[in-house]
């Protein structure tokens, strides 16, 4: 997912209604804390870790 506007990971999760208890965010393949700023063009991945079998 490519981002168009600069925002923090926390804001990004809030906007996209992502539960921090069930998902982690990586930016350009690296795990980041919630205050990390996402810049235009960064590649964001939502790692949802609760689904399993």
């Amino acid at each position, binding site marked *: 997912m490519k981002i168009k506007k600069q925002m923090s990971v926390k804001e990004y999760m809030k906007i996209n209604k992502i539960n921090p208890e069930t998902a982690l965010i990586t930016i350009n393949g690296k*795990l980041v*804390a919630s205050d990390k700023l996402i810049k235009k063009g960064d590649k964001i991945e939502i790692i949802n870790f609760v689904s399993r*079998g």
Partner: protein
Amino acid sequence: MKCVFCNKEAVFEASTPTKKISLCEKHLVEDVSKKVKLAVKKYGLISKNTTILIALSGGKDSISLMHVLSKNFENKIIAVSVNEGIKGYRDESIFFAKKYAKEFGVKHYVIEFKKEYGFSMDDVVRIMNKFPLKPCSYCGVLRRQLINKFAKKMNKKYDDVRLATAHTLDDEVQSIFMNIFQNDFEKLMRCSAITGYYKFNNGIKPKDFPKGFIPRIKPYRLVSEKESMAYFLVNNFKTIEGSCPNISDAYRNRLRNALNKYVWKSRRYDFKLNILNWFDAILSKKLRNHKIKSSELKECKICGEPTSGEICKTCILIEKIKEVVKNEIKKE
């Protein structure tokens, strides 16, 4: 945000009983290792001579646990994976299980449904309308029996074998709530760090176990699923993406979603750890004076596992499955 220990850039916020702390990659790895060591010490999971047999599915939790144990403990470690015969899923996860076992220097074994039972889970799923329950119920029972059988075999070869499963804090809290909501007191009392009715918190000695019983230990009990995933990511481990194709809308999944939503909305990030600590305190009191009377337990005539009857419930179920599957395979 900076790491509270070294001022490097933080990648994770860990929940503690009192607050959230920011951690860099190095201190996240140390924090998870510390929690595993704490669980081992607190619950007396491993002694000096224990051989740790890891139930290795090839998923994030079992790979991370194998890594933590192999890095932090001197004990002999072996791992076992079960190939249930789920095409497009299990073969891939076993590929990763093999890869990482080799990388961490852990001897790895694979046991297969098809070889042991004569049928795979794909065979069972094909005729699922002949069974009253969902695939996971059968798969779980069949898998547990094979692992137990294998663990007993290893116990003849190595000292004091204990089966380590990668149950996380989240798994334990879900089990506690499931058993409370289903009013299943017996099962609730089994949600301990070592399965069975054993003296708690005082260190477990092999002589305390009934004959033929391989204790199951949960060294990952204080590590949350989120921490386990973060540990997996910062170590750049890889595994299969997605879930088992047979996964059903089980009660556990609905409960997991509800608990995670509660933590998120209420911001009670210490909720899961508090529940576990509360439960441990109750369990500790309940079990302090509990002693096993050996006369209560017999050995199952088929599998040799401890049971109150002649044949254990698992074996009765397995015989039924075998009968139905074999008849159907013959018809085809």
